[in-house]
């Protein structure tokens, strides 16, 4: 079986300008933050980001990487709003495709199944249809009910983070929620999985239903310990709430932000993790 191990920088180098990149996790939970940080170190730009958004969105917006954002929400969970996302929206700095979060799920599922769309009730009567004027409805051929035809959210690249994986891309989540990481992978042409620890296949113990991705769904595996920081990656670690507050405070103040970048985001992943350790 193929050894798919690679570095975060090698994953980031796979991205090119204008690509559509799906990011797994949910809000400020199990985000592939080390991969996101690696993207900040590249010249890539004009990305379309597809995400149940958290600080992944904030960091990419801060670095000017985002041309277009596809989302149902952007939130830091314990802090309701991501300041960078708010700022770029209020400046009119990005194009958006804002959906109901169940519609977003249908879009991922449609892409995973190679369907052009899936029907869903969510969106009817709401301004989802007004702010996305290209969205269409379909009529049920059985009883005539009108439903929203949620288009497939096709991705060029998927980035997800799990607790464990083997070198072939069999990935395991050990927390309570798979989120939508398997669907992100199935919706994408190129799929990259970061994890807390790479282990032998035989060491992927625990209930078999925790094996969320299998190797045909993954093109590259990256070991990034603490790689979801500062989002949660239970049971390995919870969200670093103190650090998240530092992020949010810095992100909310354009005068503070450069020193946050200097302290945490300017010396690669090793430098980031050392700087985080030094603050805790």
């Amino acid at each position: 079986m193929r050894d798919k191990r690679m570095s975060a920088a090698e994953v980031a180098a796979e991205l090119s300008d204008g690509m559509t990149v799906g990011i797994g996790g949910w809000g400020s939970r199990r985000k592939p933050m080390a991969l996101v940080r690696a993207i900040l170190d590249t010249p890539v730009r004009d990305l379309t980001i597809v995400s149940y958004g958290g600080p992944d969105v904030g960091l990419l917006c801060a670095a000017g990487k985002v041309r277009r954002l596809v989302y149902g929400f952007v939130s830091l969970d314990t802090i309701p709003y991501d300041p960078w996302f708010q700022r770029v929206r209020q400046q009119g700095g990005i194009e958006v495709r804002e959906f109901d979060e169940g519609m977003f799920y249908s879009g991922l599922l449609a892409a995973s199944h190679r369907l052009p769309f899936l029907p869903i009730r969510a969106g009817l009567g709401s301004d989802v249809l007004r702010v996305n004027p290209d969205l269409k409805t379909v009529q049920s051929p059985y009883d005539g009910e009108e439903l929203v035809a949620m288009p497939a959210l096709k991705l060029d690249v998927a980035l997800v983070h799990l607790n464990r994986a083997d070198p072939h891309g069999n990935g395991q989540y050990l927390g309570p929620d798979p989120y939508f990481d398997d669907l992100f992978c199935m919706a994408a042409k190129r799929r990259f999985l970061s994890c807390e620890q790479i282990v032998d296949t035989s060491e992927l113990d625990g209930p078999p239903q925790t094996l969320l991705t299998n190797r045909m769904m993954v093109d590259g595996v990256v070991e990034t310990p603490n790689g979801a920081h500062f989002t949660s990656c239970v049971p390995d670690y919870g969200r670093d709430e103190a650090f998240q507050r530092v992020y949010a405070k810095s992100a909310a103040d354009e005068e503070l932000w450069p020193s946050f970048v200097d302290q945490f985001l300017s010396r690669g992943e090793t430098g980031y993790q050392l700087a985080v350790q030094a603050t805790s």
Partner: protein
Amino acid sequence: MSRIDVCVAACADLFLGAGEILASPMGLIPQLGAKLARLTTEPDLLLSDGEAYLLGEHGVEGWLPYRKVFDVVAHGRRHVVMGANQLDRFGNQNISAIGDHDKPTRQLLGFRGAPGNTVNHRTSYWVPKHSRRVFVPRVDVVSGVGHDRGFHHAYRVVTNLCVLDFETPDGSMRLVSTHPGVTVDEVLDNTGFPLDIGETATTREPSRQELELIDKLDPDHARD
């Protein structure tokens, strides 16, 4: 007894007769209300821990990660209590953005699950500060769908001042009761559109047993 305990009991009453469905209260006061309902009138209610588990009386009784929540939304056995940055007289709710959606003056959370919730199952709202900022003639972005747009799942609104519903011929908002010590005028002064005020009652006070339960559920008084 404080005003906030009246609000908790009013939130508990949202679930009267709900039976064996999933209660999804967003925010502390609706959460306390749903828990109080399960301990009193609605023992069959299902409650999530806000993450991926259903919590029964004695710990975990089920698994409900986010993607299964969407299944329950579509299935319909759910009553959600959401917040609202803006709410109009037909129950249209905005949690997406203030101003023009293309370039908002204030970006909020986004649509979240509001469009799907309101076309699939019963939805109520909790407004901790009843004001003309929230109760507006017209919401900037319709996230949760109201009665004038062809959907009929908006049930009640509980605020720090009163309880409202939509039991009028055209599905517009009606004052059900004001909390003890609150006048009808106070509600009207803080509402940016005309309200139907028929036979307005006083919101019931929680019983001594309910007050004891609320104290047990929130011993540190995070609700105050």
